[in-house]
């Protein structure tokens, strides 16, 4: 098994990548994350800025064109999409085996 060393993603990174399937600027990302997580995950400005910086360096997201002159807009890269998908599959597997094992214990 040669699994990507970036896996598993942290909850915040997962949500940022998910929010950037469509282009968004910083504050919009914060709002999207809060919405997607149903208020469970709230990122503060400083933390989000640092996380975006790291994701840009890792080439998981990239800047994209926008009308807003002051705010930078980002979008997920191909590498980011692959990683998001891989982490999704990892979690689906975990959910499935957990369900199987729990069922086994009940009967």
């Amino acid at each position, binding site marked *: 098994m040669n699994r990507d060393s970036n896996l598993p993603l942290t909850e*915040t990174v997962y949500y940022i990548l998910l929010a950037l399937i469509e282009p968004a600027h910083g504050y919009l990302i914060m709002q999207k994350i809060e919405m997607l997580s149903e208020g469970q995950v709230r990122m503060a400005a400083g933390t989000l800025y640092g996380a975006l910086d790291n994701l840009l360096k890792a080439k998981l997201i990239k800047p994209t064109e926008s009308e807003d002159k002051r*705010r930078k807009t980002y979008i997920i890269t191909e590498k980011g999409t692959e990683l998001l998908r891989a982490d999704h599959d990892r979690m689906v597997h975990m959910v499935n085996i957990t369900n199987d094992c729990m069922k086994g214990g009940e009967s």
Partner: protein
Amino acid sequence: MIKYKFFLDLTKEENWLREMSTKGHGFQNKKIGYQFEQNDTSESVYRIDYQTFKHREDYLDYIALFEDSGWIHIAGTKSSGKQYFKKDETNEAFKEEYDIFSDGKSKATRYKKMMYYFGSNFLFLISLTIVFFDESNLVKSLNPKSLYLTPGLWQSNGLSFWFSFLFETPFALARGFLWYLFPVSAIICVYYYIKSRLLWKAS
């Protein structure tokens, strides 16, 4: 009102600004000292980030993100490192524990960046120390008379002596002692590097 203070511990600095605010001194700006406005009735919470920027667009985008989320940028420049933000008590989302960081790890990276800053300054200063090292200079600074180059200075007297002597003194001091500024500043950088490392470990 201007106050002069130096902080490495950002939490202490934030608390001090908060304390000043409760006393009615609203933090306005920071140049060399902290500028306060007297009789400021709005109580504010202050938070400090450590960030430098290569491009102006990056800096403006950074400030826009904070201001979108209710933090007013009050002091700091593109390359100052420390960035000061405030939130007023009148703000709806105001809470004493409100922060610009939502986890401890990202909050601690401030000290990591400070370590990097002091570390690279140390390397720069230590290379200046080595490049400008001159053995004869060390001997000369132990014998201050040799630092004066005016011919016949020590044989002259009266007004002409004092005139030449006082005129040359700044140059003599620079010749003899300027070099010492490099190792001394390098040592200060090491000290600050270690202190910010301890703060990083503790956070």
